[in-house]
């Protein structure tokens, strides 16, 4: 990975076309496997963290049997799920039923690809980065409906319908609030957006502090993103107390695990978008990182990036273990009556700000005043 791909493919320009294809394929496969490994490891850690956070909040101990502090619990869980019987209901639509979890997982994993983990660590620096991520995460809704319909279970169907209605609706406030921030760096590339936010002690030029509208946009985005990944208080597609387990009612073993991992993967992805767009990505706050050796800087940047993401994920977990669930119509009401109008007016405000002040943020203005 790293920007190796670019370097190597550039170096291959005088090799034969066949060699070029082979080497490129190998590099892509290797980097894909690395990202997959990171994603799986993260998902394991996240499930552990979720249970531990729940335990803390609920005055319990939480997992503590496997490994130190129960840290290896996720491995035990994974092994357990692998060994479980794989049941395909007799009346299920087999192809849909079997394909759905893989599509969900693939879509969620594919969204890891355009992320910029640090200055030089990324898989692909797509010029349509954000657009790609929004598009690929929408595939989830289709796959969920496939699984729900394929299960031939009424509870699953309920869950699938709810999931699709919810994900499609919440995409609008998400995009509108993202746009309010995107118009400032005027780029869709993850890396460019993060680079734009450098300076200001690594914190004051974050887009969230750029102007009041981006601040509001961040909160709108975050609320909508929680809904997008189906977590409490917006977890109606898998509302356990209402519709059993929603769209994955009939799934067992590893197929269920794929849905489960996809949910945690999505959490990472939406948090990563928030961090990239609003919270300065891998910009290291308060430390003049430019004087450091390159390797140390890269490590620090990756660490900072992940820390910010985990903080946002912790916030999601904290919200999950606090709030009751909304009803379906109330969920839609929140989306269409509150988040969408706010995001829309917010976008107009942000555009006016950018137009009038030429994209200067609050920090730039203050800094400009101080210098003069």
């Amino acid at each position, binding site marked *: 990975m790293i920007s190796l791909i670019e370097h190597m493919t550039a170096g291959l320009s005088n090799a034969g076309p066949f060699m070029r294809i082979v080497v490129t394929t190998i590099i892509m496969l290797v980097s894909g496997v690395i990202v997959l490994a990171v994603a799986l490891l993260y998902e394991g850690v996240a499930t552990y963290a979720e249970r531990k*956070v729940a*335990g*803390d*909040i*609920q*005055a*319990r*101990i939480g997992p*503590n049997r496997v490994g130190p502090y129960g840290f290896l619990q996720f491995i035990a869980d994974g092994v357990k799920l692998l060994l479980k019987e794989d049941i395909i209901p007799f009346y299920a639509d087999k192809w849909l039923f079997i394909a759905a979890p893989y599509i969900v997982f693939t879509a969620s994993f594919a969204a890891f690809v355009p992320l910029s983990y640090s200055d030089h660590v990324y898989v692909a620096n797509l010029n349509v980065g954000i657009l790609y991520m929004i598009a690929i995460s929408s595939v989830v809704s289709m796959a969920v409906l496939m699984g729900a319909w394929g299960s031939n279970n009424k509870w699953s169907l309920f869950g699938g319908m709810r999931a699709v209605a919810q994900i499609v609706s919440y995409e609008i406030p998400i995009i509108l609030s993202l746009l309010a921030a995107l118009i400032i760096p005027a780029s869709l590339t993850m890396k460019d957006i993060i680079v734009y936010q450098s300076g200001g002690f690594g914190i004051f030029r974050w887009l969230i502090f750029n102007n009041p509208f981006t601040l509001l946009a961040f909160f709108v985005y975050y609320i909508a993103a929680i809904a997008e990944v189906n977590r409490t208080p917006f977890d109606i597609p898998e509302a356990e107390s209402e519709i059993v387990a929603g769209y994955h009612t009939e799934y067992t073993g590893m197929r269920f695990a794929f849905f489960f991992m996809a949910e945690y993967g999505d959490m990472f992805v939406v948090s990563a978008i928030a961090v990239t767009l609003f919270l300065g990505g891998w910009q290291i706050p308060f430390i003049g990182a430019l004087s450091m050796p390159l390797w140390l800087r890269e490590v620090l940047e990756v660490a900072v990036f992940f820390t910010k993401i985990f903080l946002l994920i912790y916030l999601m977990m*904290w*919200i999950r*273990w*606090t*709030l009751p669930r909304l009803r379906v119509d109330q969920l839609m009401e929140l989306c269409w009556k*509150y988040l969408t109008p706010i995001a829309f007016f917010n976008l107009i405000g942000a555009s006016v700000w950018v137009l009038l002040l030429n994209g200067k943020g609050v920090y730039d203005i203050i800094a400009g005043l101080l210098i003069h």
Partner: protein
Amino acid sequence: MSEYFKKMFDSIKSVLTGMGITIRYGVNPGTEVTQQYPEVKREPYDRFRGKLFVDINICTGCTACARICPVDVITLKTVRDENKKLRPVVFDIDNAKCIYCGLCVEACPVDNCLYFEKKYEFSSYSKEGLVSHFGLGELKPAEKKPEDKKEEKEAVK
């Protein structure tokens, strides 16, 4: 319009209040109330109704416990020994059927004969494993007493 914003503000405020409570537990490691069971075992109180235990040597074979039991958990067979005393040869308690109501313990006329132990870990792989046998076993093929109610009542008194 103002109501729209007021509603929004109130909702956010109540959500934050709730989150304030949960974070207090979330970051405070001293608030756990649970124990890690196999390592830390909770000591039951003195009156805890756990597994039934019979001190068979002082049992008079009066069958008061077997008669009061509402779910017929106790199987009791008595024979007279050489001193004409009733001895329980079979005294089985089916812990799977027991409802731990304590009526038998109260009915037992002998002190410290039938009582509850503070024991609550007696799971078993089979139904038979849950039956505790206290009987003395066949002493000798003595003359078997039919269920004579008058005699039993004397034994209670």
